[in-house]
């Protein structure tokens, strides 16, 4: 375990920022946390988490795939990718850190998504332990311990000290870089903080959320459940839940006519949208009920069925606080509980 006085936190950021792009949560104009590239004067946000998840760094909302330039009768095909720079993501919470392993299962499975892969390879993830979880948090349901977050480096902030521990070779390299600022010690302080945090975790209102019976074995039963009509009734079909979600990974590929060529890009899609997976024959999900069902079936049933029981949710609670009509995965899971018993 390494430690650093918080007074020197900016020195640490400056040191990392010198050699790599450093991103960390800072407060935006509306007072909410958002990842920004560090520059002198920025301070780490005190918010529990960012509104947008950390998936943006590996799977950005829009991304150029290929450019076509037309000249006369010839078409030039241009790969717009430039050399990906190394970057450090500081202050990722345990829930978002888990989301990367879920996204990996999608994008790094054969055929590998090289755009995503390149970003993953160049990113170093520095996680930060939670000390004040909120009522919307339920990461522990998925076996995540926010007091012992994963990532290349795990950090804890206690009183005036930052404690750091490397978990991977990438993490070792970062701590070696920061070595001039760091000193040894802090195991006891971290253990004490973890004990305190875990006592709060046990008191979280959603700590006992049960997902028993979800997963592939009850697929048809859940699919045909008549609960969906009632659950989806208030849904306004916006994309808030999908866009703040750290594990939603559906995207669309679009062409933009630039005037002298075509820019092919991908952008996040939302299963809540009426044109989601629209094809030549039309749309397979005609009403909001089916689209709404798709989102939750994907997270609670299809994903675990295809990935050894791992759910497509990390319990970050973003959809709980952001949904315009306060509908969310917890309400859905609770409503469906009776269906699979």
């Amino acid at each position, binding site marked *: 375990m390494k430690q650093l006085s918080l007074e020197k936190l900016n020195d640490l950021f400056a040191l990392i920022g010198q050699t790599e792009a450093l991103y960390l949560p800072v407060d*935006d*104009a*509306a*007072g*909410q946390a*958002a990842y920004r590239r560090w520059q002198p004067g920025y301070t780490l946000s005190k918010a*529990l988490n960012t*509104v*947008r998840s950390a998936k943006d760094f590996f799977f950005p*909302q*829009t991304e150029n795939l290929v450019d076509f330039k037309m000249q006369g009768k010839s078409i030039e095909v241009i790969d717009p990718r430039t050399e990906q720079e190394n970057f450090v993501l500081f202050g990722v919470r345990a829930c978002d850190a888990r989301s990367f392993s879920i996204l990996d299962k999608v994008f790094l499975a054969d055929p590998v998504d090289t755009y995503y892969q390149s970003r993953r390879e160049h990113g170093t993830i520095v996680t930060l332990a939670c000390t*004040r*979880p*909120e*009522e*919307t948090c339920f990461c522990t349901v998925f076996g995540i311990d926010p007091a012992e977050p994963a990532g290349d480096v795990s950090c804890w902030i206690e009183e005036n000290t930052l404690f750091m521990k490397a978990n991977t070779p990438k993490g070792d390299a970062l701590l070696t870089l920061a070595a001039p600022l760091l000193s040894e010690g802090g195991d006891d302080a971290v253990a004490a903080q973890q004990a305190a945090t875990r006592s*709060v975790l046990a*008191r*979280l*209102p*959603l700590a006992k959320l049960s997902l028993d019976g979800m997963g592939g074995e009850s697929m048809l039963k859940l699919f045909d459940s008549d609960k969906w009509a009632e659950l989806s*009734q*208030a849904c*306004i*079909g*916006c*994309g*808030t839940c*999908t*866009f*703040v979600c750290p594990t939603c990974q559906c995207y*669309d590929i*679009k062409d*933009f006519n630039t005037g002298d060529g075509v820019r092919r*890009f991908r*952008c*996040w*899609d*939302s299963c809540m*949208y*009426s*044109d989601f997976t629209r094809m030549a024959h039309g749309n397979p999900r005609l009403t909001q009920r089916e689209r709404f069902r798709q989102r939750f079936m994907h997270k609670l049933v299809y994903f675990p069925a295809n990935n050894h029981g791992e759910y497509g949710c990390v319990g970050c609670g973003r959809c*709980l*606080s*952001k949904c*315009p*009509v*306060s*509908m*969310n995965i*917890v*309400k859905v899971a*609770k409503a469906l509980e009776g269906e699979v018993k």
Partner: protein
Amino acid sequence: MQEMMIAKARELLKSGAVQRVLGWKAGEFAYDVEPAVFESAQELEKSFVYNDFCGSNLSKYLIAQSRKEGKTLVFLKPCDTYSFSQLLAEHRIVRENVYAIGIPCQGKTDGETLKGKGFTGILSAQCEGDTFTVHTLYGDKTAARADVLPERCLNCKSKKHMIYDELLGEDGEVLDSHRFDMVEKLEKMTPDERFAFWRGELSRCIRCNACRNVCPACTCEKCVFDNDASGIAQKAAADSFEENMFHIIRAFHVAGRCTDCGECSRVCPQNIPLHLLNRKFIKDINELYGAYQAGEDPDAKSPLTDYTMNDAEPGIVYHRGGNQ
């Protein structure tokens, strides 16, 4: 009030006067109240609520509900009645299938607003008189009502119901509000400052379309931004231009029809003050074409489907208001 509403709803359901009730349903926490349809007395008893978190405007749901067989009972707060009246004027709601009950409103807060004021780990929240008591994982805290109300309620334009079949509680008055203060403040800035302000705000947009989908004035069956054939369909803002375009067009399309209910800003996950764009149009309309409040008079012509021979020329923009 909640008890009165449940009793009324039960009575109307029982007599067969209405087939369903559109109201608000309790959630997991104190604040995550969700719009819901109730079809039986049991459902009402179980989860119907009316409290300080019932901010969502139910009028847009009537577009679908009023097309179902039988009557729908709906509870409308004063500002919701403006939207209801406007939707009726636009022939979006089947009036004879709606039984509207006006209910009073003292301003509604929401979980996001409480969290923004530093209440984290909210387990429950009650309001007695003018004091909110919030029980959190980290201790109990109190706050004055006025301190935890969102901007739209602090600048409430009216406590008067525009249209209803029945009223529970007393009707209020149209209020003098300061709702255009921020618009004025922006107008006084230089164009560079305004540009910087709006870039700072709109660049946070994640194009979730919540502002559009929740808006009672946005009722196109197929939005131009969802229509591939329109040539400007966007699923995400791939360029800052698209952020600007979406928000200009969204606000323009509801200009003259927007009742200023403030739902767009309430639902924005990035807390972008979208209502300012709508209020700019309202303020301009008031100044240039005479005072007009959408949803107030169902027979009034909307300012953008009307004209006079002596209207101001567009060139007036070069001279009026704003810093040059």
